[in-house]
């Protein structure tokens, strides 16, 4: 980032503050817009040949989309690993069984992407779970719900960006499992919230989100800066 203007430099510092600051779980959605603006500033301030200097670089094309999925799976897996290491107080055996299963699924997804990407895989991301109270059921399940709904919308929104039918199918194999997770976690929080109007519209359709929006939301939980500049957008 050698030739950043001072204004851009300050924007970048603000962006780092945003990602590392402690955010209440409910507030990250409110800050999502600010995060997206920050990413845009970073993008504007970088020349193509400097991209490797801005955190991890996801890449372009299908590889970029797969790395994007790998990043989200890293986040989810890290979360559930911590959840299952020391369960929140009052966790029932049924809840533990569900959370352990989900942990295993997310770890499997993470490791699958790592191997599938091979030399193209991004490195391990550093997460920031300072806003989560892992001993509190409401905090843990609320975060799990946010992650699962976000994951579903991310895969749904990324599908049309794939050039390769095989990768699209693989993403499809994973997203329905994320949807099963989302519904299951939601039922632990509130009966019959598995597919309520928070996530399903009047046409009976689930949400889809573009990578920039997803990363701005997920960014509240990821310390490592993610460069998604070259992801396809159409």
């Amino acid at each position, binding site marked *: 980032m050698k030739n950043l203007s001072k204004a851009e430099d300050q924007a970048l510092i603000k962006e780092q503050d945003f990602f590392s600051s402690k955010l209440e779980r409910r507030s990250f959605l409110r800050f999502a817009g600010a995060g997206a603006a920050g990413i845009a500033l970073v993008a504007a301030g970088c020349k193509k040949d400097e991209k490797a200097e801005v955190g991890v670089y996801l890449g372009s094309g299908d590889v970029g989309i797969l790395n994007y999925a790998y990043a989200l799976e890293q986040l989810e897996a890290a979360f559930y690993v911590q959840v299952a290491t020391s369960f929140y107080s009052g966790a029932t055996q049924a809840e533990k069984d569900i959370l352990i299963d989900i942990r295993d699924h997310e770890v499997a997804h993470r*490791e699958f992407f790592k191997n599938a990407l091979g030399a193209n895989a991004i490195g391990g991301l550093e997460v920031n779970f300072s806003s989560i109270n892992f001993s509190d059921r409401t905090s843990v399940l609320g975060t799990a719900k946010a992650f699962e709904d976000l994951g579903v919308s991310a895969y749904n929104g990324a599908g049309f960006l794939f050039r390769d039918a095989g990768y699209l199918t693989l993403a499809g194999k994973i*997203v*329905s499992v994320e949807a099963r997770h989302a519904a299951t976690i939601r039922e632990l929080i509130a009966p019959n919230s598995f597919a309520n109007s928070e996530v399903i519209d009047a046409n009976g*359709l689930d949400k889809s989100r573009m990578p920039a929006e997803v990363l701005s939301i997920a960014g509240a939980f990821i310390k490592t800066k993610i460069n998604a500049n070259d992801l396809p957008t159409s």
Partner: protein
Amino acid sequence: MNILNILDEIEKVDAEVYERLNPRRKAMKEFFNFGTKVAAASIPFAIGSMFKTAYGQTTASVEQVLQYALTLEYLEAEFYVKGVAAAGLIPAGASVAAITTIRDHENQHVAFLRSAITGLGKTPVSKPTFDFSAGNGSGTGPFATVFTNYDIFLAVAQVFEDTGVRAYKGQAPNLLRQGAVLTAALNIHSVEGRHAAKIRQMRKARGANVKPWITGKDNGIGLAAVQPSYDGEDLDTQAGIKITGINGQSISSNAATESFDEPLTMGQVLAIVDPFIV
């Protein structure tokens, strides 16, 4: 024979369906007529393999995919409409509220797909006549008590939802690079996944040995008739990568299979739903 109805419906959008299945169309029709008389029980398997051969390796058009999806949504929508309307079937309160939510989504999917097809300048296929006993119109199939026995109703619901997930997934490659149509299909696909998880939890609460996700190729129902909806779900190698124990992680074989839902081809799904269509 109901299969001819399905073939006729497909023929409306794929004039060469009979040729795909067998170049001698007349022979095909004769085969099916013959089949009804002597070996009805073995027909689904024969049909399944024929559809698989005919459609397994070929691509379907956007319209074909949407018409196919509409047919499956008609099936689900009418199933839940009848279930909710059946007096005394679903326990009042949370259970009927959950099924009503799912019913509403399936009705919305029907309306959405019909408008999408109309938007393509095409005519939506009409709703088939269904036999939810899976008796091909006899009303005396393996699920004859589907609207009087709540556990049977939930079992059929689980099969429909899990099959629906696999059906949409199987069509994603045919919608590659199709923008909004693909996104809409994916947005329906994940809703079916949410439904499947909920139905499975409802069954578990009533004593069924199921999780919200599919373990191995277990149908969790104990009826061989529903097994085609689960065959192939036990895959534990994805894109050539073995998932069990991947990279030294303690991922069991069960967890490996649960982590990925598997697609079904159009032919496989049509063979599965065939007994439900008159």
